[in-house]
């Protein structure tokens, strides 16, 4: 049997996330956001979290609800400021949350490096900008690069469309976004899915995240929250 566990509720799925943990949270805006796991994390009660995600919450749901509940000490993201990021904006302006802005591609690649055992890498993004401040640089073949370090999570919360009994995952459309890379970059990877199928019924050629990366899978009602938001 696979070592991937299949807890029966999202609350069981997030068990053991301690105060002060670094948590990678999948999603780009609302697409691919693991709403059920975030709601469970709020109920679970861990505090003083460092959240790594592309955005810093939209509207009142998901990540925004976690921030409103005062559970995050710091957000590492590429794009906090949006038309509906009022929860984060208020906390930030009140000095109640720390922000580390990372270019989107670096955010993804730094997690990829963490998951791939890379100690650091040279990247041309942000050379000559304020986000290069304090970074080591090096000229390689006439081009300047910045030294970027991995971002590793203690936990990752991601959403996929379907898992099999070995924890192999497939995603839907652009909801894939950060899921596959976050799945490689955290000590414990927790996925919420709409469906769990027997081993052998998923096309092995179509598997995006192999089950080796996935520690816990919980099935939740399909897209209920997104449908709600979309209306």
């Amino acid at each position, binding site marked *: 049997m696979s070592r991937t566990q299949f807890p029966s509720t999202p609350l069981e799925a997030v068990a053991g996330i301690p105060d002060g943990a670094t948590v990678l949270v999948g999603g*780009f*805006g*609302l*697409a*691919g956001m693991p709403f059920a796991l975030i709601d469970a994390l709020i109920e679970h009660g861990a505090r003083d979290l460092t959240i790594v995600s*592309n955005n810093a919450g*939209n509207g009142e749901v998901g990540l925004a609800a976690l921030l409103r509940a005062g559970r995050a000490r710091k957000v590492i993201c*590429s*794009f*906090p*400021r*949006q038309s509906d990021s009022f929860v*984060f*904006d208020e906390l*930030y*302006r009140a000095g109640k949350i720390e*922000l580390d*802005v*990372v*270019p*989107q*591609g*670096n*955010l*993804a*690649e730094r*997690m*990829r490096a963490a998951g791939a055992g890379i100690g650091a890498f040279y*990247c*041309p*993004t*942000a*050379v*000559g*900008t*304020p*986000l290069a401040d304090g970074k080591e640089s090096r000229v390689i073949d006439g081009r300047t690069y910045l030294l970027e370090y991995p971002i590793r999570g203690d936990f990752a919360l991601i959403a996929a*469309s379907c898992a099999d009994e070995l924890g192999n995952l497939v*995603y*839907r*459309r*652009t*909801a*894939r*976004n*950060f*899921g*596959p*890379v976050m799945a490689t970059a955290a000590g414990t990877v927790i996925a919420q899915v709409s469906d769990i199928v027997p081993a052998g019924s998923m096309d092995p050629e179509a598997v*995006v995240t192999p089950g080796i990366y996935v520690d816990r899978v919980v099935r939740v009602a399909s*897209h209920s929250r*997104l*449908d709600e*938001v*979309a209306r």
Partner: protein
Amino acid sequence: MSTAGRRADADERYRNLTGQGPLTMDELARVVARDIPRGAYGNLGIGHPTRVAEHLRPEAGVVLHTENGMLGMGPLAVGDDVDPDLTNAGKLPVTELPGAAYFDHASSFAMMRGGHLDFCVLGAYQVSTDGDLANWHTGAGDDIPAVGGAMDLAIGARNVLVMMTLFTRSGAPKLVPRCTYPLTGVACVSRVYTDYAVFDISPGGGPRVRQTFGITPAELGQRLALPYTLR
């Protein structure tokens, strides 16, 4: 009408367009779209650049990349086509075209950074005459910095095209000898499309006026207050 006939007709409309000015952003989007080579792969930034898609002719076979993880992005989705799992980088629901492909975020930015995208079109606060780009942060104390994929696109796409109004609402030029806003990328812009003129930028050579819309190069030079004569 024959293809040649249609093209001649389009050329005629284009010439008429260039006799007037300044252009609306929609007219400018048409000018940008016309310059995109057949079969090119590219990325359209959030805001005005998104409008370029509306003017790309299907037979030109331009393939649009959206950094949240898709090639072959189609027009905005309406009605039953709205799918919360399928959005563009601005988080608006979009459609997929035949031949579309999905990929994760690390792959999406590797594709960009690796020089595989032929072009991107970005908005800007300012562009310097050496091609420096400022489009992510006003630098104001109460502005929450949000970079998203702008810095990755600036260094990644093979041709970085900017589409913007040439002057701010208060009349200040946005094509400037030196950017005063925080930079997104250094010497990365190759062409600037504005409502008054199109400029080609080459390192150290100063901007070359490619096309004007209802203004002479001499008048342009005066209004831009550049320390040399525009070519």
